């Protein structure tokens, strides 16, 4: 059924939170929907503050610290290659990689580790960090959940920058308005108007939508139709 995974994840995100945003909750849902031992969100783009957005455990924090310090690992690769990087058996990898990362990660109890890129079009934000304390590949279901989760997490990160709430994001995603290409066309236009990155332009569009209590797609439509500018040159 169309959108089922997305709705399940959105429900999990907002369930009992009265819509208030917390990155801790975001991370926790990343872990539960993918049925992993631990999860984290690594920010790696220059467009947002670099560093960990959240981790569910000390081991997840270690996985991220190692990668920030060493500049290698599954999340670094996922971000650089812009595709999921899967290592189902870190102790016996099919190909040797991450020579500095692997030893300390194994010592920390990591047996399988997976990185999924966080991107919204050309905007690349970082990577979703998932690990398990026993080796084994992701099932097709876990893998599909992780892809959808990464999509939602990327949107959620931009939204947090705009001061919005997960509840609002959930409503927007459920209404489907978030995926209108018009939002992305408008983000490109606003980025040129303000000479900022597309990531920052997406944040500005969102903030404007929240501030004026209008759907983001409607605001974006005004930008594309040249009824609204963000540089004050109306």
């Amino acid at each position: 059924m169309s959108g089922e995974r997305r709705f399940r994840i959105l429900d999990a995100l907002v369930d009992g939170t009265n819509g208030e945003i917390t990155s801790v909750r975001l991370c926790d849902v990343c872990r539960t929907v993918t049925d992993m031992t631990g999860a984290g969100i690594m920010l790696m783009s220059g467009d947002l503050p670099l560093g960990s957005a959240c981790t569910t455990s000390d081991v997840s924090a270690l996985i991220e610290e190692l990668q920030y310090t060493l500049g290698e690992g599954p999340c670094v690769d996922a971000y650089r290659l812009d595709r999921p990087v899967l290592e189902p058996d870190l102790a016996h990898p099919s190909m040797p990689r991450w020579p500095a990362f692997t030893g300390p990660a194994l010592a920390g109890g990591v047996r399988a580790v997976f990185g999924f890129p966080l991107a919204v079009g050309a905007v690349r934000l970082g990577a979703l960090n998932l690990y398990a304390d026993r080796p084994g590949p992701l099932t097709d279901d876990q893998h599909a959940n992780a892809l959808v989760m990464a999509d939602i997490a990327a949107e959620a990160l931009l939204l947090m920058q705009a001061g919005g709430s997960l509840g609002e994001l959930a409503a927007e995603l459920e209404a489907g308005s978030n995926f209108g290409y018009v939002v992305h066309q408008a983000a490109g236009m606003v980025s040129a108007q303000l000479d900022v990155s597309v990531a920052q332009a997406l944040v500005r569009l969102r903030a404007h939508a929240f501030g004026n209590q209008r759907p983001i797609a409607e605001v974006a439509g005004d930008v594309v139709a040249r009824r609204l500018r963000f540089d004050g040159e109306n």
Partner: protein
Amino acid sequence: MRSDVQKGASGPGSVDIPRETLLAHTLVELADSLVADFDVIDLLTLLADRCVDVVDVAAAGLMLASPDGELRVLASSSEAMRVLELFELQADEGPCVDCYRSGEPIVNLKLADHDTRWPRFSPRAIEGGFRSVHALPMRLRGQTIGALNMFRIDEGPMREPDVVAAQALADVATIAILQHRAVRDAQILNEQLTRALNTRIAIEQAKGVVAERANLDMEHAFARLRRHARNHNLRLTDIAQAISSKAMPVSALDP
């Protein structure tokens, strides 16, 4: 018929070439484009354009399902907002989503007759000047990954040879998206679908940058990106990325 859904006046459809010849030309052209490292969005846009030339339709678009089963527009013969919106609307209802869910072709449906089936889509499509809609599944070994959607201005049925030709184009699209690689499992398929959809978003962002800087509408902004990519034998996706990240100024694009 409005100008933005007209067939390209300089396209092969404007002269009286038999459809079989056009189809053969198109398949050769597409095969030539399926080189290593081709750009999937560029190829699929070409395919949508050719679909309009080869088959008697006013607009054609390809919609692809995300790993979550949600349909999104990947390429269309017209970038006019009105047309794109009609495609987008079908994430919720319309011939494309019905075709995707059933895996069966939906052909020759007159729009006025189906207002109860698609209460939101039909009035908007009619308002856009369309009278009949057609959708053919994009299938890979029994799994439907998306659909080719076609709009016509008249109500008459699509001829059977046109349906066959359009299905051939839909099949080429499926191969293109899967990028030659044998899809071993659902995970690789899902990764490729996700990647293709994200690429399209990146192109929309770049269109916005070009539209603002060069004071163009989205259709012309897209045409400019594509033209530059083709002229310099670069991937459309890479140009879009460079423009969005401001690594390349819009003024450096070919006019």
